[in-house]
């Protein structure tokens, strides 16, 4: 029953315990004020929702390709100052924004107006004194991409990977994707359990966020 992600009980029990997991994590979290989480997929949105953090990030519920994400982070100020030029994702029907020479897919958005409003809000509320960066080893993510991320001059960064990479300082191995060539959807509930554990919960995000507080970052 708990190996079938479509099972009613798998979903029902996991959502029930997921609520408790989030509640416990919110209790553990001390770094709650003006936190910015930047990610190349929906992780920023999931963490903000799980932990009750404000949406102080432009990268909410969308996705960059790995190479575009590296470009974006390598020249953050430039890309954040560029206008968004919208088109529609032919497969998903969601907005895609061209930002200079990179693209960001607003995966879970209904309209360009909604996407632009959330991007601009997040952009205005970035807190560079309390900022965290997440990359996921997803499809088309190469070792070179992860190495480039690893070398970015940011203090708080992590790469969620499908296997151990001892040579990458920021890598954290997420168990459960060993048979794959990359991580699948890390926000899915882990198969074979019903305690509300998502794959990304393999990394202790609360501990990671608590390591930085605005007072310590200067």
């Amino acid at each position: 029953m708990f190996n079938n992600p479509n099972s009613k009980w798998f979903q029902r029990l996991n959502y029930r315990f997921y609520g408790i997991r989030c509640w416990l994590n919110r209790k553990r979290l001390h770094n709650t004020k003006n936190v910015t989480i930047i990610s190349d997929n929906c992780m920023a949105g999931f963490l903000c929702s799980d932990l009750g953090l404000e949406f102080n990030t432009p990268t909410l519920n969308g996705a960059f390709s790995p190479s575009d994400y590296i470009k974006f982070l390598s020249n953050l100020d430039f890309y954040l100052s560029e206008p968004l030029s919208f088109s529609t994702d032919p497969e998903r029907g969601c907005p895609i924004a061209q930002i200079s020479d990179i693209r960001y897919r607003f995966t879970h958005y209904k309209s360009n107006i909604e996407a632009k409003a959330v991007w601009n809000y997040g952009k205005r509320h970035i807190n560079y004194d309390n900022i965290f960066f997440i990359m996921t080893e997803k499809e088309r993510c190469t070792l070179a991409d992860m190495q480039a991320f690893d070398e970015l001059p940011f203090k708080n960064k992590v790469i969620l990977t499908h296997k151990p990479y001892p040579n990458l300082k920021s890598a954290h191995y997420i168990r459960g994707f060993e048979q794959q060539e990359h991580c699948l959807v890390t926000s899915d509930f882990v198969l074979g359990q019903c305690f509300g554990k998502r794959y990304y919960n393999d990394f202790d995000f609360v501990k990671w966020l608590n390591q930085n507080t605005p007072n310590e970052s200067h």
Partner: protein
Amino acid sequence: MNHTETIIRIFSEIFEIPKERINIETRRKDISGWDSVGHLALITSIEDELNITIPQQQWKNLDSISKIVELVDTIA
């Protein structure tokens, strides 16, 4: 000044729902796309359009068009 029409227009544009399907009685639970991210987009778009600031502590309470209109009418 009553801002019902402006707010319904912004709502319609953000959630891509025809204006005819939205009215002052529309509530958050009636619109599937009106999630936390959609709510953020809605409130910030209203702020930008009307050049006002809606205090963040009020955001959670704004779960219907009527409540948004009522608050905006007192601010703008």
